[in-house]
């Protein structure tokens, strides 16, 4: 097991005195699909932003034993540039990294195709549905070919069917690109469906309450949601979450 990312003794207190994370020690192995689950405000998004380097921890260290890889980030909102069409939005990270134009265009076109947005290259964000905007946001993240994909409750605002479709597409993309994924969610079922590992956090200030390893079949579809295996996985996560809440109360 190769460690890709190592969070050691991370804590975070914001300038306004809010203690978001009490202490987190977490090693993320290459190839894992790791979900961070916990109640609202437990610091799971902050942990993700610390991993991305967007927020500095108050104490503790973020280490990359293999060197810092290309990191992709998908936010809760699609955060697309409203004045740019889908193609330009997906190309943005490549433009910011000064990639040459034709290669950037090729890569963006491929990413758009992979998320199923072919034909919408020239559409503007306001013309897209919520699910399509999220697809564009995912295309933008994978266009830069990240080794690590960080996702902050990306599907929370979507309807159930769209969410399930995006869950399956995400698993396929992660598998094809051998991406490691850190996925923040407050949905027990979503974490149980997607993950090979679920880290449950306590209410604020966040600590790790449980670290659950799951072994779902590599290829899943809607029928997996009806299996005993899935029910057991969801049961485990759910029980751990309930324990974490009760311990805090």
């Amino acid at each position: 097991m190769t460690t890709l990312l190592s969070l050691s003794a991370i804590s975070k207190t914001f300038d306004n005195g809010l203690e978001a994370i009490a202490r987190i020690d977490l090693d993320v192995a290459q190839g894992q699909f790791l979900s961070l689950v916990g109640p609202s405000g437990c610091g799971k998004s902050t942990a993700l932003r610390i991993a991305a380097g967007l927020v500095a921890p108050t104490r503790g260290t973020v280490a990359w034993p293999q060197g810092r890889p290309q990191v992709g980030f998908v936010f809760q909102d699609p955060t697309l540039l409203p004045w740019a069409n889908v193609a330009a939005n997906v190309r943005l990270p490549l433009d910011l990294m000064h990639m040459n134009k034709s290669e950037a265009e090729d890569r963006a076109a491929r990413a758009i195709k992979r998320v199923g947005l072919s034909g919408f290259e020239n559409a503007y964000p306001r013309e897209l549905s919520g699910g399509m905007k999220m697809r564009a946001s995912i295309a933008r993240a994978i266009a830069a070919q990240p080794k690590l994909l960080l996702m902050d409750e990306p599907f929370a605002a979507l309807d159930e069917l769209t969410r399930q479709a995006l869950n399956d597409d995400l698993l396929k993309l992660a598998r094809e690109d051998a991406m490691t994924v850190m996925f923040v969610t407050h949905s027990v079922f979503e974490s149980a469906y997607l993950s090979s590992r679920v880290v449950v956090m306590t209410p604020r200030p966040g600590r790790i309450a449980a670290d659950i390893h799951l072994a779902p079949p590599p290829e899943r579809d809607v029928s997996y949601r009806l299996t005993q295996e899935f029910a057991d996985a969801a049961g485990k996560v759910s029980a751990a979450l309930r324990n974490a809440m009760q311990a805090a109360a």
Partner: protein
Amino acid sequence: MNGALKYLLPAALGIATLALWEFLVRHYQVPIFLLPTPSAIWPAFTENFVSLMGSLWVTLQVTWIAFAVALIGGLALAIVFSQSRTAENALFPYAVILQVTPVISVAPLLLIWTGYEHVERAAVIIALVVAFFPILSNATIGLRSVDPGLVDLFRLYGASRWQILWRLQFPGALPYILTGMKISGGLALIGAVTAELAAGSGTATGLEWRVIEAGNRLEIAKMFAALALLSAVGIVNFYALTGLEWLLLHRWHESAVKKQG
């Protein structure tokens, strides 16, 4: 039908008003040095066509030069403010003083400095002063109003300050900047006439001077002709900027999208 009506309705209203005006002035025999009939204004316009067009050109030049300088200067200062709170804290109060001091009260002072033989210089300065602030304040707010999520995204990919400014802050500020430009376009014209109004004499040759001159001679019809031209300048400026706004925003910004239909 709806589209044609949008233009026909105000046109019909305008024609009806002119007809009523013509009728009332004739019926009550209002003296021509108080209120001329519309039919008397047109000859005043054609008879003074050359001088009016010359004055129009002077006023347009003053307005446009002042507007262009205000736009460039306002944007440049707004960019400085967006990069440095210190600069904003130091300079903004002075921008406010410039804005709140009634410009017409400063005009006589400026005229002494530029000299009454160069009223157009005072006109440009006054127009610039009044046109500057709306662009500065709107652009500053616009450059600040960035989606923090997008800033995070740019930072994640190692974007430089410059990239954040040109690829994120500036396009995001466009709706604000265009609003500022529409306000400033109108104010620049007011500034341009203010200097001539304050000068009252001298070498002024803009449209406002034609208004004053005609007023002194009780040529009210000519006064109306010059005033109509001033209105026309304001209208053209406003709709040119509205068109520019539509051009830049209609694909993505809700304010412009809705106008489409």
